[in-house]
């Protein structure tokens, strides 16, 4: 398939009252049946990017810049919430980070799923219910008939996350955005959920954007990876090339921070410092305030330039080892 499912070009926006963009010129593309993983430090703008795609940012407190979203051939302005809302829950769906609080505690889970079906399929209540039951079965909830009438508090975290997935996938969306769907869960449950998403993806051919900070998860499921730092995509490429040939100092720092399960135990290397607040971001390369290789040239913003085919990096020094050794 030539035409990608989703193309995001230069998405940028800021919250009202702030002097700098929270998300700056974010671009990526996603094909059907592909999984794009977005990684990056906490607060770097992963979730707001996802929310912007879904048109779920509070309309009155966000200012959108230029930029375009093209979904299945149709082009949208990012602030066009009304048009996006028409597809929300139907053609694009989202799973949130917090399974514990994302379900309405006052309603039965089955009804919460059926509600979404009824809304978008113009079908009767009975049909919606049947679809909800089917979805509950699909996401591996045992005895869905019984669980249909359960309230969220009666389910464990893993089950709740499955309900969220069932709800998101009930209308066979073409695009699924999953915002850290397994962070709150332990490894065994996490494994189950990832497998489930992969299965469903294989079945329907939807495109998936997965936000996570667990590089292990990324390695397992990603087709492409976008590494974000402070609202910018600093590195973008296929999962393979990102893991085998990371270029950006931040990506390297991130990967180096992961404790290893094998080999000798060494002191973990870190990315020193913290992300500056919006409004205090350095001009140019936003990572420069923490980058061990920062140089005066970093005051100019580096392009997200293609390093290898399909692998783009926003760093003046890429490839790092060659540039540094040359200058040394």
């Amino acid at each position, binding site marked *: 398939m030539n035409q990608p499912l989703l193309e995001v070009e230069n998405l940028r926006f800021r919250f009202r009252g702030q002097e700098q963009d929270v998300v700056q010129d974010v671009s990526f593309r996603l094909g059907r049946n592909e999984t794009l993983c977005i990684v990056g430090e906490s607060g770097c703008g992963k979730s707001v990017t996802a929310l912007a795609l879904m048109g779920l940012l509070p309309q009155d407190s966000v200012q959108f810049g230029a930029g375009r979203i093209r979904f299945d051939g149709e082009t949208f302005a990012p602030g066009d919430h009304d048009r996006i809302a028409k597809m929300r829950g139907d053609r694009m769906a989202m799973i949130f980070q917090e399974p514990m609080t994302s379900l309405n*505690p006052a309603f039965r889970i089955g009804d919460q799923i059926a509600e979404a079906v009824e809304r978008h399929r113009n079908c009767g209540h009975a049909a919606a219910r049947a679809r909800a039951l089917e979805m509950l079965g699909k996401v591996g909830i045992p005895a869905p008939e019984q669980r249909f009438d359960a309230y969220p508090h*009666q389910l464990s975290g893993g089950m709740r996350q499955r309900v969220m997935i069932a709800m998101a996938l009930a209308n066979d969306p073409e695009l699924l955005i999953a915002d850290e769907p397994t962070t709150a869960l332990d490894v065994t449950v996490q494994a189950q959920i990832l497998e489930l998403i992969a299965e469903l993806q294989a079945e329907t051919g939807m495109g998936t954007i997965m936000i996570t900070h667990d590089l292990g998860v990324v390695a397992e499921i990603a087709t492409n990876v976008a590494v974000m730092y402070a609202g910018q995509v600093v590195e973008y490429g296929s999962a393979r090339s990102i893991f085998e040939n990371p270029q950006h100092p931040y990506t390297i720092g991130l990967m180096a921070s992961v404790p290893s399960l094998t080999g000798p135990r060494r002191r973990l290397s870190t990315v020193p410092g913290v992300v500056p607040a919006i409004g205090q971001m350095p001009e140019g390369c936003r990572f420069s305030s923490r980058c061990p290789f920062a140089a005066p040239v970093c005051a100019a913003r580096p392009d997200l330039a293609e390093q290898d085919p399909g692998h783009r990096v926003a760093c003046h020094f890429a490839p790092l080892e060659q540039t540094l050794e040359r200058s040394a």
Partner: protein
Amino acid sequence: MLSFVARRIVIAIPTVILISIFVFGLQKLLPGDPILAMAGEERDPETIAFLREKYRMNDPVWVQYATWIKGVVTGNLGISLRTNQPVTELIAQKLPVTIQLALMALVFALVIGIPAGILSAVKKGTITDYVANVVALSGLSIPNFWLGIMLILLVAVKWQALPASGYVPPGEDLWLSLKTMLMPAFVLGTALAATLMRHTRSAMLGVLKSDYVRTARAKGLAERRVILRHAFRNALTPIVTLTALLFGELIAGAVLTEQIFTIPGFGKLVVDAVFNRDYAVVQGIVLVTAMGFIVMNILADAAYFVLNPRLRKQ
């Protein structure tokens, strides 16, 4: 369920006893002698002595209390010093009146307070929000009597649209009964609506920030449905608790409203009884009010359980 109610009632017994002792004691401390008020203009000493004896005013307080309690247990609350009517009869007469007033007022309070609260929460910081707040607060600071008399002068006297005051039992003429009660209920309701509105607003503000509201939006639901079904449903729990708390204000407000609109309800009964030092009546009313509080609390708890599935059986 039954055991729950039973338990609540057992807890309620000491409360009622405490309240009755408290009120009994308090009455004894009140200035003013009921017998003197009863003796009439001539104040014949013989009559006074007789009445004191008849109403056992010469017994020690605790004996009086014991006598009273004995009566209560057998369903006898004594007789009114003023009209000789049995207190139970008076209460049976007045209670439905005040209940009707309170219920209708509650309807007004809910119908005004909750939508206003929702609206101002949803439109926080906008003109709508300010207007809703100003209206609510004026409802709170306009005294009942002023609003009441103004309404009477306008609606009853000028437009002749509703009766000026009084009471018609619903059994007699339901439509007229509702019509007569409309103004008082509105007056009583507005003050409550203000409180309700402010609390609804803050509950809604909290709920609107929650994750599940975002989920509802992500499902592509219409905004109306998101707010009314998903958000409001969850804000309801604190509102219900508050409504139970408002019961006290309702009773206090009913006293004033009944005075203005000359409604022969509990409030008027208690005011007259207090001013006449008609202790048996006061005591009876307090007893019933206390039970009212307890019932309200039980109802609120029950509603709480109904509204909040988390508290139901696992």
